[in-house]
């Protein structure tokens, strides 16, 4: 009886596979393969903003070229706000807003996409979006209008973003930021931490601002690395170590884990970050950490 069911199943599946194999070549359009580089390209530079990354000083130990076979049709015209093209672009805007306005007490996340459109402009892809963003520490939301340009061609350069928001930055973070800054600027008590959040999603309250700062600093990398086939979040601060304050800036070395949703990869980066209430967040150095292929063997103890 079981044998009969299995062969039924096989025939079923094979019928479907045959049908799909016949149908697919005739209906699939778009770019059949997308090469996703997880190396780093030229950093986003803009010295007018409080937060910035300098135009040089970007070292990487390896560049990984990974072939991801993705059938993607590039959407043009009005976008469905709940479909992925609008969402991915909106997340890029989120990263941009954090590079501009983020701090140990200000961390912005996408709340909702209301509308969007995309078009081809010369070699590039231009998006326009209406969004709600939320600052998650104060829970204040604001409406944003944004425009993005994803560069075309093979050169990996960062997307360009412009955004204006209403009401998003209402929360008064001055007192908290000042207190945090004063608490940590003296050199006699360097802070460090690891696994934030831990496996259970937990972190000590005094680690939270460092978690936020790590997230904001990661946004510089996530912004730079984003394209229409990526969706980044920071998965965890693996560890951070505070260094001596220099030029009135708090300095912290971070090792962060980024989660890229489409490939599902966890990507390790090291960053050198500075911050002060006046200067905002700056990322001085970024370094991609290679994925350890020999680290995956089973541990000796089993549970």
């Amino acid at each position: 009886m079981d044998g009969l069911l299995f062969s039924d199943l096989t025939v079923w599946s094979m019928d479907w596979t045959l049908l799909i194999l016949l149908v697919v070549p005739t209906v699939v359009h778009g770019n059949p393969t997308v090469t996703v580089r997880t190396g780093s390209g030229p950093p986003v530079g803009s010295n007018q903003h409080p937060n910035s990354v300098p135009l040089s000083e970007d070292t990487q130990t390896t560049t990984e070229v990974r072939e991801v076979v993705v059938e993607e049709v590039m959407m043009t015209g009005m976008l469905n706000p709940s479909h992925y093209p609008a969402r991915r672009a909106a997340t890029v805007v989120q990263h941009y807003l954090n590079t501009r306005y983020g701090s140990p007490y200000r961390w912005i996340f996408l709340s909702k996409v209301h509308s969007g459109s995309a078009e081809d402009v010369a070699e590039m892809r231009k998006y326009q979006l209406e969004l709600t963003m939320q600052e998650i520490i104060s829970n204040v939301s604001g409406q944003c209008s944004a425009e993005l340009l994803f560069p075309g061609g093979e050169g990996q350069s960062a997307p360009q973003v412009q955004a204006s928001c209403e009401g998003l930055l209402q929360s008064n973070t001055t007192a908290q930021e000042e207190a945090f800054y004063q608490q940590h600027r003296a050199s006699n008590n360097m802070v460090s931490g690891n696994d934030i959040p831990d496996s259970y999603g937990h972190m000590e309250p005094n680690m939270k601002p460092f978690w936020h700062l790590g997230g904001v600093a990661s946004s510089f990398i996530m912004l730079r690395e984003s394209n229409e086939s990526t969706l980044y979040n920071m998965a965890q601060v693996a560890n951070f170590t505070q260094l001596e304050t220099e030029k009135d800036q708090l300095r912290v070395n971070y090792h962060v884990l980024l989660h890229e949703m489409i490939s599902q990869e966890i990507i390790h980066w090291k960053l050198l970050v500075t911050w002060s209430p006046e200067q905002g967040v700056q990322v001085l150095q970024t370094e991609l950490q290679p994925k350890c292929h020999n680290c995956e063997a089973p541990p000796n103890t089993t549970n």
Partner: protein
Amino acid sequence: MMMLGLGSVGLVLLSLAVQSGHGAQDSAVWSREETTERNYYTRYHNMSEITAWMEQMKRENPDVVSSMVYGQTYERRNITLLKIGLSSTVRKKAIWMDCGIHAREWIAPAFCQYFVREILRTYKTDTKVNEMMKNLDFYITPVLNVDGYIYSWHNESTRLWRKSRSPGTGGCTCYGTDLNRNFYANWGMVGVSTDCCSETYCGTKALSESEAWAVTDMLGKMREDILAFLTIHSYSQLILVPYGHPNISAPNYDELMEVGLGAAMAIKAVHGMDYTVGTSPDILYPFLGSSQDFARLIGIPLSFTFELRDKGEHGFELPEDQIQPTCEEAYAGAQHIITYTHDKAFYSYAATVTATLWTTLLAAWVSSAILL
């Protein structure tokens, strides 16, 4: 005499068809006696704890809970499900739910545990849950990827493991295959990687992984009885419907979307969280070889993937204080789907039987009137 009997059966069936909505809604307020129990369901549990918990569920509810080992992992561990339902002399229809196909998605096994506890807690007093336990059996696998889950508990550096734990082949030193790319559902065509070090590595061939094979085998055997298939993941707050291929639609796409959107509304009503509904190629990314697609392909009409909280703030490492609200909303979503599935199967059936009975009655009356 026979007519009277038929008539009363017809009336009973008619009243079943008319009965609307759920039974008494249980309040979310916990009683004092359940405090320690409540603490259990607000924490993550390792594999030995979950195994012990399964034994406890059987012990405490022997007339409705049994377990079944239906496969082995690569490292030769049992893959176990709990079968939950009121016992019956006739063959019953089934609902399938599995959690933890991806190791790092810890909120998923937590939800399966919550779901089991919730139906066991309410089936005696909630008339709707009772009815569903009577008519259906729930087949629930709290942790499908047992090896991966155990590995993700090993230490902080293994916490974000996703795949199975089978070793790479052909000189590749990495481990693991993405179980949700390994099913015989247009395997290997889209949204996968052929690099064994990749997180979406689809394996050397379809069903190369014993975990995927175990599910395939069970679903194949039960194919005619399973009404709905639910597979639980995190994160992103989505409800996915088949298929993962951008150009192929499920024959009942409209129904799937309608039920999915209903589930999302039920979820939102609990704590205000937004879950987006759609096919994966529409709302996430295209990919093939998934368990959800396989279930739909072999004829299980209602096949859904839940991606639970959050939207990237904590990602896979969802804080324990969010376990309860996440499970509450996901339960509401799952119940919406299960209730729809149940009512479609049993009320439509009842309506058909009623109609047949009344037609028979009418025919008998007419023929007896003619004969007289």
